């Protein structure tokens, strides 16, 4: 939806923002309609039926079931359209596409630490290419924060003890506000920055221009080795006393209690800090907890490493600069594996 000509609407710069705006205009329309309707009728009655002599008593009216039904059912139906529309966009908004490029975000009083899969780090700035799907995996080292990009119409709390995600696809190059939208203490209003959406070729330039550090997956592999995870899960995550980690990400995992669960970021994180919470079928509760031994950022790096353990591409291979493909999906992003994971 093209909205740049409408006043009081912030820049609309993601594939999602137009959809949210459309719903917003619908809601505004209904609100204005009902507000005008009610205040119009009110004013009309108040003038027309003003008290003309102090002794008049109007004829009492009891009510009307027909009217009551009418003005319950109609608002209900309108409300349901709002619900359905809102829920539909929300659902789309909450499900990151599988081919999105990941960016790791860690909130901390009062700054945003950002790391790209290619190793670049930024603080309070996020550079992204236009036309590519980006997925933010977010954690926090202290209190709850909230990553809010008004121009993209997205926000999500960043909650200690777990991961949350956001995804978007920028449509217009530009520099946009980044706010922390959950009150987080003294300098909450200073926890701001910008999101810079760039044309893909500018972005590539930016990537190669900024100093690239070790990629998170490589760093994660090192942590994996130093913490001794390999003794149970094998040096390449092939599995020994513990289950194989190759290809586990985004797959269905069968649990000891008969249920199954999708191995998303939250699950992997929980498996490391609180292994007993959900036991993989066929394994005992022998894995020790690593809570307190790894920082939030290190956890994300381990996570990046585990994600990189895909069946066809063993080892943490990550191109330094993703090459855009016709579909707008960077080819170097870890492709979702279609090979079923071998059970324990």
């Amino acid at each position, binding site marked *: 939806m093209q909205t740049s000509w409408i006043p009081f609407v912030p820049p609309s710069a993601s594939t999602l923002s137009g959809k949210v705006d459309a719903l917003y205009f619908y809601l505004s329309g209904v609100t204005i309609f009902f507000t005008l309707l009610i205040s119009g009728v009110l004013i009309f009655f108040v003038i027309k039926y003003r008290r003309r002599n102090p002794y008049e008593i109007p004829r009492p009216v009891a009510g009307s079931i027909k009217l009551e039904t009418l003005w319950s059912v109609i608002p209900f139906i309108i409300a349901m359209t709002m619900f359905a529309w809102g829920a539909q966009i929300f659902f789309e908004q*909450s*499900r990151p596409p599988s081919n999105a490029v990941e960016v790791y975000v860690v909130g901390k009083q009062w700054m945003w630490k950002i790391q790209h899969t290619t190793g670049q780090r930024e603080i309070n700035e996020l550079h992204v290419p236009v036309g590519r799907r980006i997925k933010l995996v977010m954690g926090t080292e202290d209190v709850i924060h909230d990553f809010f990009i008004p121009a993209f119409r997205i926000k999500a709390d960043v909650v200690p003890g777990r991961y949350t995600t956001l995804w978007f696809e920028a449509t217009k190059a530009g520099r946009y506000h980044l706010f922390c939208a959950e009150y987080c203490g003294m300098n909450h209003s200073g926890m701001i920055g910008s999101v810079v959406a760039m044309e893909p070729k500018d972005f590539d330039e930016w990537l190669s221009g900024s100093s690239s550090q070790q990629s998170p997956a490589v760093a994660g592999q090192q942590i994996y080795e130093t913490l001794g995870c390999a003794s149970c899960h094998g040096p390449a995550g092939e599995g020994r006393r513990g289950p194989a980690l190759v290809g586990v990400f985004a797959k269905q995992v069968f649990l000891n209690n008969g249920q199954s*669960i*999708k191995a*998303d970021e*939250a*699950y992997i994180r929980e498996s490391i800090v609180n292994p007993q919470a959900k036991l993989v079928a066929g394994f005992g509760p022998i894995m020790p907890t690593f809570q307190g031994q790894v920082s939030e950022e290190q956890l994300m790096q381990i996570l990046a490493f585990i994600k990189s353990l895909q069946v066809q591409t063993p080892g943490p291979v990550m191109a330094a600069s993703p090459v855009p493909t016709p579909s707008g999906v960077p080819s170097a992003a870890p492709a979702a594996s279609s090979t079923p994971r071998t059970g324990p």
Partner: protein
Amino acid sequence: MSEHIVPVKVYVSIFLALMVGTAVTVLAAFQDFPGALNVIVAMTIAVVKATLVVLYFMHVRYSARLIWVIVASALFWMGILFALTFSDYWTRGWL
């Protein structure tokens, strides 16, 4: 709301039933039932005991309908608190 006097015999038998319930629940706790049955058994016994206290010691069995409504609504609101909170926790991993 004229008042109903519960005979002593009833009080005594309720008391005995509660004692038996306590013994049973302790014994059952050491039995290893399959699945979540341990929890179910323990909670069922607790609910039965609580119901006996409410109905007889607290005279709800002989009370006005309003009192029944009040008791039911307390349970209903507890149900809301639990059901909707767990609607979050149980479905978190679903996406």
